[in-house]
Structures are given as C-alpha cells and as structure tokens.
C-alpha cells in the first residue's frame, strides 16, 4: 500500500474556497467583467464552488466556463496513455474580461501554459489570473498562482491527489508517496 497522508480535509477545502473567493473579489474590486474558467476535470468543480462562494459574499452571478486542454498539451506525441478529448464549454465572450483560471494542483506549470494558449485562442481577456487549491512546487515554466489554497512543499517521489465530492465522493487532499 502506498503511504498516504491527509493535507486538507473537507472543512479546510471549504475554508480555502471561501478565502480565495474573498481574495478574488478584493483584487478585482467586485464582480464586474469577472469570470471563472475551470480546467477539466477537477478545476471545473472548484470553479463552481468559487462561483457559489462569490454569490454568497456579493450576491452576484458570475459566468463559469469549462476548458479542456488536451489539444494544447506539449506531450501529446510522448504520452503512453492516450488522453481523451473532451469539450471546451465557454459560452460567453472572454474578450476584455478578467478571467480566473481554476485548477486543483499546480505542479510543473505545463497544464497552465496549455490553458493560457487555449484561452487566448478564444479571445483577448483583459487579464488572466490563476487560482489553485494546492501549489506543490517544482515549476518547469515561469508561472505562478494568484490565489492558493495551500502551499505544500513536496518531493518528486510524491504525488498530490485532490478528491472532490462531485466525482470522488469525498472532499480531501492527500499526499501520496510513490513506491
């Protein structure tokens, strides 16, 4: 059995979401021209939770889109496991909007690089910001998050698993030591 330790529990995830929602509103001075874009798959659920948290604070509905970055990956011809292409569903215009990209774990930064390219192909946002639940370090590209649930220093022999109620039946973040 791989060695697992809990980084965040249900309550910690909830508090992180609420705090990030406050930070997003503070930085953007409200909800005008604000939108959220979740990166498939778990970023989508986190974006929906942020939307709900923002509504609780500011009583405003902000649009949420779904970004699939498969077609923008830089390792398509290298991966042994074949990625499945899903839909990008952003049914609002991102031009001149402040877009907050949402993902669960920030690691090498390559997913975010792909997401930035994918977003910019859809229009020219005024700004793109990045919110992640966990930043585990080991960046390979000059990318940094604007909003972080928790910074977790990790080794390369570890992985971080975020599990969310919507898909995994529980809310928790685990640090897993690879064997």
């Amino acid at each position, binding site marked *: 059995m791989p060695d697992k330790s809990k980084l965040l529990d249900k309550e910690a995830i909830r508090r992180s979401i609420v705090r990030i929602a406050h930070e997003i509103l503070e930085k953007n001075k409200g909800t005008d021209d604000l939108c959220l874009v979740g990166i498939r798959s778990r970023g989508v659920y986190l974006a929906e939770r942020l939307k709900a948290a923002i509504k609780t604070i500011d009583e405003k509905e902000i649009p949420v889109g779904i970004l699939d970055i498969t077609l*923008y990956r830089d390792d398509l011809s290298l991966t042994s496991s074949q990625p499945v292409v899903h*839909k990008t569903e952003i049914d609002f215009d991102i031009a001149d909007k402040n877009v907050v990209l949402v993902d669960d774990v920030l690691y090498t930064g390559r997913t975010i690089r792909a997401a930035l390219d994918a977003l910019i*192909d859809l229009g020219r946002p005024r700004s793109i910001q990045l919110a992640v639940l966990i930043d585990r370090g080991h960046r390979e590209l000059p990318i940094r998050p604007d909003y972080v649930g928790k910074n977790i220093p990790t080794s390369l022999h570890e992985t971080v698993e975020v599990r969310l109620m919507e898909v995994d039946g529980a809310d928790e973040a685990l640090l897993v030591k690879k064997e």
Partner: protein
Amino acid sequence: MVWTRKDLLGLDDLSREEIELILSTADSFKEVSTREIKKVPALRGKTVVNLFYEPSTRTRVSFEVAAKRLSADVINIETETSSVKKGETLIDTGTNIQALNADIIVIRHNYSGAAMMLAKHLHISVVNAGDGWHEHPTQALLDMFTLKEKLGNIQGLKVSIVGDIAHSRVARSNIWGLIKLGAEVTVCAPKILIPPAIEEMGVRVSHDIEEALHNADAVNVLRMQFERDGENAFPKQVEYFKNFGITKERLQKAKKNIIVMHPGPLNRGIEISSEVADGANSVILEQVTNGIAVRMAVLFLVAQGQDKKHENTD
C-alpha cells in the same frame, strides 16, 4: 477505451466501442469550428498527405479543412498531375510519401482494398477516403454522428438507405457501422442495384420506396450516377425519380420528423426533389459541417495510434 490503430480502413474492422470513441471525440472537436480562431495545435508539426486517385472535391476539401484546423501541414496530390501518370505503382508512391516523413496519408482510390494494401506496406498512418465499391468510413461516421446528434442514440433506430446499393461504398460502410451500433437497416432500390446476398450483412431488402420510408427514423439517399450512361441517361433518370425519388408527397406518408440525409453532390430531380433537399427534414448541410469534426477526430486518433509506435521501435 483506448484507440490503438494507426489506420482507419473501414468500419467492418472496428468494434462498436471504437466507433463510439470516434463519435464522442468528434463531438468534442465540433466546437473548435465555431470559434473565431478555428484552430487547435493538436497536430502541429504533423504532415497530412491527401492522395486522391479519383476526382473528389468535397471529401478532399473536408479532410484538408479538418487537418488545417488541427494545425497539421497538408499536401494534396492529385494523380492527374503526378508521377502516377508516369506509371508509378501505389506502393512506390506510398513509400515515397513516407520517405518525406509525412505522418498520415488520406487515400481515395478506385480499387477496393487499395487503402488496406498501402497500410500494410507503410508504418505511417493511412486513412481510407473511399476505396472502389468497398468502404468510405468517414462518410458513414459523419452520417452516424449526424443521426446521433439529431436523435440522441443509434440503438434501435430504423434507417433506410435508398439508391445504388450495389456500387456504393457509402452504403456498405453505413450498413456495417449502423448495425454495430444497433440500428435496424433497410436497403431500398430496384432489383438490379441490390447486390446478391446483401441480407447476410444483417439488412432488410425492399423494392418499394413507400414501404421503406414507412416508420423509418431516417433515410439516407444515395447519389445516382447516371452520368456514366451518357446520352441514355435521361429516360432512366425520369423513371428512377418516378419510382424511387424522395419527394414531398412520399415524405408526407412517412414519420413527421424523418431525417433526410444525402452524402452529396445532389442530383436534384433524380434521387431527391429540391423541395425535400432544401426542406425542414433535410440535414444535408449539417452533414457537411459534421464531416469536419468527424475527420478531425479520425486524424487526431490515428496520429496517436499505438501500433505505429511499436513498429518504430523495431
């Protein structure tokens, strides 16, 4: 479900799951064509060669658009203006294209089995864009994609294919694909255009167009190729339209929401009336749009086909 094939040669070889994977991948690609920037970088740096031994504009253009929306580089070889005229064999042409480090050959050929022969001799991907009377898999896939989009599910649908079944690769690919996905297929044509023992493919045969349309959820109208008959064509055209043409009057006796498909190009007034081709039941232009998404999915999947990687490590 993981796609492992380096080639797409026909629907006869594919499993139901493979067909469903192509259709669901195509569904994800459809949105790309609605963007202002209609391009994704998935096949950036890959070279797709369209090798067409038969005249074809729509299929060739559809593959070209699909490849370009995936950021591949596309080269079109039309054999009228190539070394094929100087007697080069298909295999030699193929190995030369492979030696250019191309990644995918899309081939249209007048001989059944040409795509398969090429695929066996090459380690790069081969996509069949129509071989003789054998198969035209991407046309059948886009027909099924359109049906699925309109009606939700192929399972249990009643689909009638009307026209020259004997000489139609579109019919053959559609029959294989539709039956794998659980549709009930009827083929309808004059006796001379129905190949012997077609029932063994699992279809029902009808020679009565009104009976074939009755209760059908969709009708796929094939193009009649009377132009090959030269000046004898006209009386046959009139007779065919009278007995098998899809007209407004005939549709009125069918299901109200019957879907009318046609692979194009249309012969208005021969196999289909203008009223029907341009009418509310027709999805003919949506088929053209969907063809791009389906061909993007096929190019994307074969480019990652894993059996190619095994061969490269030999």
